[in-house]
């Protein structure tokens, strides 16, 4: 393997043959481009393949080790602050460097990045954007250089994925999920290749056609943020430089599309049907001002995109497709998951406060505040000074959630039996309640059920914007899969209870269940399963409210409410305002 891939036909062969080659390319590009690329979103389960890939990065970068930023890293450690022991020892404030500053000019691994707290995500994003961080905490103000390159290791399942703000800033995506250790092949690059490419990198030119093609492909994949395109350009340049060329060609473009664009696709164009395809995702809700598809990529881009898609490792395309479909349903994608991190029932911060008014003293923060003052205070006190002089001003309290937040989970019957009009009222009530909720920082979620199944249309959120989008897309009609809805409600409620939210549900239905758990459309089985699901929900001690929306209330909804051990209200003619008032009175 001397002078690998100066011949580009070799490269394509390898790329086509194994998905590992793309991963290998990503490692080389990461090392070559470093901070300017942001980093890699690494989707991989823990295991030998991931270890091997990380080892490859470490080798190529010639770093002795890749440092790890744990997901739960405290803000003080991440950003820096007062070094407690040094401050106590030396009797004057000594700053401690934060992790991000320590990792300047290095490649770092953000372990379990999908579980990073929102603030950690923000700080890493700022470090990537600015290459420096402004610190203003614990008596220290200043800038720290943080030109880091991040490998965000994401073991995420369907439930949890990397925060989109961070994913957006990571130029490359590597997916090792479908690669076995036996697929991992020989090393394609060594550090000499990288060094050689570095000298060429700035001289590589990109043609106008390639600028245009990349942008057009971005548009047809529904990628909004230009960051992915900028990363794509860098990758094209770097790929050409590694291959020993001074201008980009189609292979470079194809690689950039595979590593930078396709993994971030919000939609996949359908080439098979010229007549044309479903509308683009409802990304911007009501403010759709442009025609649905402003830029139909011309055939040339189509061809390039098709070629890139064809070169994708098997299985990956399907994954992208399912994800894009999911994104279409709940346009904000994963950010519901991140919201939960914001308010998991755990300490949320530290603040200076009076402990006599209640609250738990945070010893470490208090000591940190008191530490620099010790010599001064001892001098003041003279011989009566204690080992540690703590004043009331030093006292810091840990802030937990001010009170337990509530989640109001709407379970809305969108079936044919619940008339369309009721659905519109339910939508209105959800929005009204949400408008109140965000003042109190409460959350709302929405499950809709119709036809075959129940769906969590709106994961717990406080965002009116997201709620409106989810509600606007809520269709009506079909059968009533009540059991599935109650099961999903139970799962959602259990999850949010675990996160420290007090959960209430509001079930809007006429109670006419007619789809069984196994999907069979049968009134008897449907009712039987619904009652069983109701019992399970009741056993979880989750309180709720059943609102009977039938024009003429009937005993079946009442029976359901009894089984659920929940309050029952018949509201045959309520409008959104009345619904809202009733719900608030019943649940708050």
């Amino acid at each position, binding site marked *: 393997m001397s002078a690998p891939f100066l011949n580009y036909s070799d490269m394509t062969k390898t790329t086509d043959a194994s998905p590992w080659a793309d991963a290998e390319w990503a490692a080389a590009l990461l090392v070559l481009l470093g901070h300017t690329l942001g980093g890699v979103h690494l989707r991989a389960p823990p295991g030998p393949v991931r270890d091997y890939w990380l080892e490859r990065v470490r080798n190529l970068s010639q770093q002795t080790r890749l440092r790890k930023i744990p997901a739960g890293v405290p803000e003080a450690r991440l950003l820096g602050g007062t070094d407690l022991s040094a401050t106590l020892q030396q009797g004057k404030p000594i700053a401690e460097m934060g992790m991000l500053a320590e990792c300047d000019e290095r490649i770092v691994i953000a372990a379990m990045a999908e579980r990073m707290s929102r603030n950690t995500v923000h700080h890493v994003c700022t470090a990537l954007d600015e290459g420096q961080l402004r610190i*203003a*905490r614990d008596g220290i103000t200043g800038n720290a250089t943080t030109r880091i390159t991040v490998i965000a290791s994401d073991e995420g399942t369907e439930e949890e994925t990397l925060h989109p703000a961070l994913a957006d800033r990571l130029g490359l995506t590597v997916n090792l999920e479908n690669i076995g250790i036996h697929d991992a092949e020989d090393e394609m690059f060594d550090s000499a290749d990288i060094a050689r490419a570095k000298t060429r990198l700035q001289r590589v030119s990109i043609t106008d056609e390639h600028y245009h093609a990349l*942008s057009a492909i971005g*548009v047809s994949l529904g990628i909004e943020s230009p960051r992915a395109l900028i990363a794509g350009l860098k990758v094209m340049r770097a790929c050409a430089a590694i291959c020993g060329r001074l201008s980009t060609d189609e292979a470079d473009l194809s690689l950039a599309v595979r590593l930078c664009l396709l993994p971030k696709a919000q939609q996949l164009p359908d080439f098979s049907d010229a007549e044309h395809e479903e509308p683009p995702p409802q990304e911007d809700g009501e403010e759709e001002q442009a025609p649905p598809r402003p830029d139909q990529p011309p055939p040339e881009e189509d061809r390039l995109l098709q070629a890139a898609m064809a070169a994708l490792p098997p299985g990956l395309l399907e994954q992208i497709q399912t994800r894009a479909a999911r994104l279409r349903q709940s346009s*904000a994608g994963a950010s519901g998951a991140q919201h939960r991190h914001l308010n998991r029932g755990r300490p949320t911060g530290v603040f200076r406060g009076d402990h006599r008014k209640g609250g738990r003293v945070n010893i470490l923060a208090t000591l940190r505040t008191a530490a620099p003052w010790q010599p001064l205070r001892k001098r003041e006190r003279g011989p009566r000074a204690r080992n540690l002089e703590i004043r009331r001003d030093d006292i810091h309290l840990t802030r937990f959630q001010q009170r337990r937040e509530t989640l109001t989970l709407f379970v809305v019957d969108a079936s044919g039996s619940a008339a369309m009009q009721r659905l519109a009222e339910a939508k209105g009530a959800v929005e009204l309640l949400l408008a109140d909720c965000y*003042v109190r920082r409460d959350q709302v979620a929405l499950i809709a059920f119709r036809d075959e199944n129940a769906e969590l249309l709106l994961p717990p959120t406080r965002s009116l914007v997201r709620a409106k989008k989810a509600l606007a897309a809520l269709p009506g009609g079909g059968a009533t899969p009540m059991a599935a809805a109650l099961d999903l409600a139970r799962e959602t409620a259990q999850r949010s209870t675990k996160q420290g939210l007090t959960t209430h549900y509001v079930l809007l239905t006429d109670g006419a269940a007619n789809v069984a758990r196994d999907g069979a459309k049968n009134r008897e089985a449907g009712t039987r399963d619904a009652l069983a699901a109701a019992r399970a929900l009741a056993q979880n001690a989750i309180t709720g409210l059943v609102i009977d929306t039938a024009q003429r209330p009937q005993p079946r909804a009442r029976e359901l409410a009894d089984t659920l051990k929940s309050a029952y209200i018949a509201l045959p003619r309520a409008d959104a305002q009345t619904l809202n008032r009733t719900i608030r009175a019943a649940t708050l």
Partner: protein
Amino acid sequence: MSIAFPFTAIVGQEDMKQALMIAAVDPGVGGVLVLGERGTGKSTTIRALAAMLPTIDVVAQCLYQCDPSAPRPGLCTHCGKPGETPATRSVTIPVVDLPLGSTEDRVVGALDIERALVNGEKAFQPGLLAQANRGFLYVDEVNLLEDHIVDALLDVAASGENVVEREGLSIRHPARFVLVGSGNPEEGELRPQLQDRFGLSVDVRTPKDVPTRVEIIRQREAFDHDRAAFKKKWARKESALRRKIQSARASLDDIDTPAELLETAARLCLSLGTDGLRGELTLVRSARALAALQGKPVATLSHLKTVATSVLRHRLRRDPLDESSADSRVERAISELFGHDQDH
């Protein structure tokens, strides 16, 4: 400091640029809120603003950039003392970052510990609010800001004065700043009290047409490739805009405000049912600032119309049943009010 992307090189995003320029001309409009999705250039644009700001005269020895020509009562305790005219110096209007994770002591200020230790004297070490006096205070991801920091901000923003009582200190100093916040609305709502503090609010989105996007990525590439050279290339445009802002600031007091404009502002706010007078005042101030920017002697209805959406969109009472967006409600109210107007 690293070199920031030039303000004039930012492609598109005219609303955001205009709102920031208006705030630069008249800090009295009361802050700019920028909301938008990822990758719309929110922080890039706001950080670029710093280079566009003209200089101001400050009292040379003052920690709070006190204005030497201002009436004494509004100044800090030191500059407020009667006496001879102090020495002055000229500084660029400050843009201060308030990063998430800041602690309260660094935001509002605290006892200067080094001086306390070395000289045994109780001196105040000003915080970010002091640094931002007469300038801009920028909070990225403002919707994630900790509640107790928001409380401190609201308090100071309302009074224009920062009062510190801690560690045996009792300090008050002026802290008037233009609050600039950015965030992604999908990550959660802003506290209503904080939202009210912003005079202007803009929604930014990414352009979706291919040629514009090509231009965006080309600019960014050129910038990343050689920041100093890129900055130099834009230097002329940058200084032209800086001069424009400077002269707009100078002429602001002389802009005529016809009675008709005041009346229209009032009627517009009335028809939209915005609470309080702030909307009206900000409308008029923004229209005047825009006229000054364009070098016009009079603020016209056309100026008013241009700024109306930014001024009013975050002040509408929420009506969740009204499916239309805040923007279209403002536009509707404008077209109802103006009919087919002759002004354009």
